[in-house]
């Protein structure tokens, strides 16, 4: 019972923090709300019985990728002027379209959950790291390989962009 309430609490935090990400006028604050949202999601994963995914969520997303985001935004030297401009952009007209679309999606999702047959699973089963690894490198090996190709492409691209050009080529 308490696990259920914890789950709903952290899910609510995740949703509220995500809303604040898009409504924050200061970019660094927005990123921090994203970090909060990711941490709340990690707790959701844990409560759903996936501690390994929860830990990786913090280590990879909250601890590394978001730090890089903050790092990049810190260089922009955000001033009050930027905050004011951001406030101008966030007018209510800009909200209408996305809100309607998101509500439609939500309605579909609720309908889908209503129609779907009730799940027989009532207890959460803890999935150990070993099981995750065995699944990743067993049935999903191809997906892992494709993802690694994607990352490699990104790495090569980054290297190309950061490479010093020879003198005569400039």
């Amino acid at each position, binding site marked *: 019972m308490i696990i259920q309430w914890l789950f709903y609490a952290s899910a609510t935090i995740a949703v509220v923090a995500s809303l604040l990400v898009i409504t924050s006028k*200061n970019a*660094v*604050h927005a990123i*921090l709300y994203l*970090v909060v949202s990711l941490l709340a999601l990690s707790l959701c994963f844990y409560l759903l019985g996936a*501690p*390994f995914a*929860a*830990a*990786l969520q*913090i*280590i990879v997303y*909250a*601890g*590394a990728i978001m*730090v*890089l985001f*903050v*790092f990049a935004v*810190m*260089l922009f030297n955000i001033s009050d002027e930027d905050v004011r401009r951001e406030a101008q952009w966030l007018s209510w007209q800009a909200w209408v379209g996305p809100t309607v679309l998101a509500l439609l999606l939500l309605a579909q999702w609720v309908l889908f959950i209503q129609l779907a047959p009730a799940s027989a699973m009532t207890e959460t089963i803890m999935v*150990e*790291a070993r099981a995750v690894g065995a699944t990743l490198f067993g049935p999903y090996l191809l997906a892992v390989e494709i993802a690694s190709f994607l990352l490699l492409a990104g790495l090569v691209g980054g290297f190309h962009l950061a490479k010093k050009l020879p003198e005569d080529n400039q």
Partner: protein
Amino acid sequence: MWDMELLLKITLLVSTLLPTAALLVWLERRLLGFWQERCGPNRVGPFGILQSLADLIKILFKHDWIPPFADKPLFVLAPLIGALAVMMSFVVVPLSPGWMISDSHIGLLFFLAMTSLAVYGVLLAGWSSNNKYALLGGMRAAAQTICYEVFMGVSLLGVVILAGSFRLSDIVQAQQGLWFVIPQFVGFVIFIIAGIAESHRLPFDLPEAETELTGGFHTEYSGIKFALFFLGEYLGIMLISMMATTLFLGGWLGPWLPPLVWFLLKTLLLICFFILLRASLPRPRYDQLLAFGWKWLLPLALVNLLVTAAIKLTGGT
């Protein structure tokens, strides 16, 4: 429903950690004095042991100033994040067989997650101070931490392969025959280097290098908030020493003496080693630090991981 014993343990741990961190400041200053042929603090109490208490009283009475140009909520939050993230990690440290607050089966990952969150303290302090020195310090901290975090994780995977578990008590038990410092010597050295960089201690204290950045990320901090950063740093040293003891030096294992004593002895030895490093090594340049990390330590950690995995796979020990 509440486990009273657990609550008692947590209270006891927190209430011993904080004074120990303060005592560590005194120990460091005394040892530095000893190695540099001077006295160090020796006036307050016997051997100056109450020096930290005097410092604490002084720092509590200082004006707790928030600069008007700072981002106030973040400025207040940053030192708390830094200190809390480090303190959270102590939850998984197994001090002795009967003394573990949480023996989680993802204990090692929890430690890595908390150390990766600790960087936000420094990063946000640097940014929210709205001061160029602080910002430079914060950026250095970010680049340094990301770089060294990567192969800290990779260097620990060798241990995980040998022990076959992320659970810290299993890792200690797996060292019954041979401490992992011998088969995983490369991993041990890389972990120690990464640990110093993570807790941004000398010689890797570039985020706060006072000769070039005044105070780095904590330039604008004073009073109790500054003390929190200080506390976080010393707790960080303790944490890294405890983790190195657990992962490589056999944790609580050892003959004759009770397990807890062994654990604390090994930890103390490592802490003294960290202080000796501070006393003897100069600070590298910023680009040297990053180049050394990415170009040498990361490939070395990967090779170590591959070799360990290959040996394990072919059925060696």
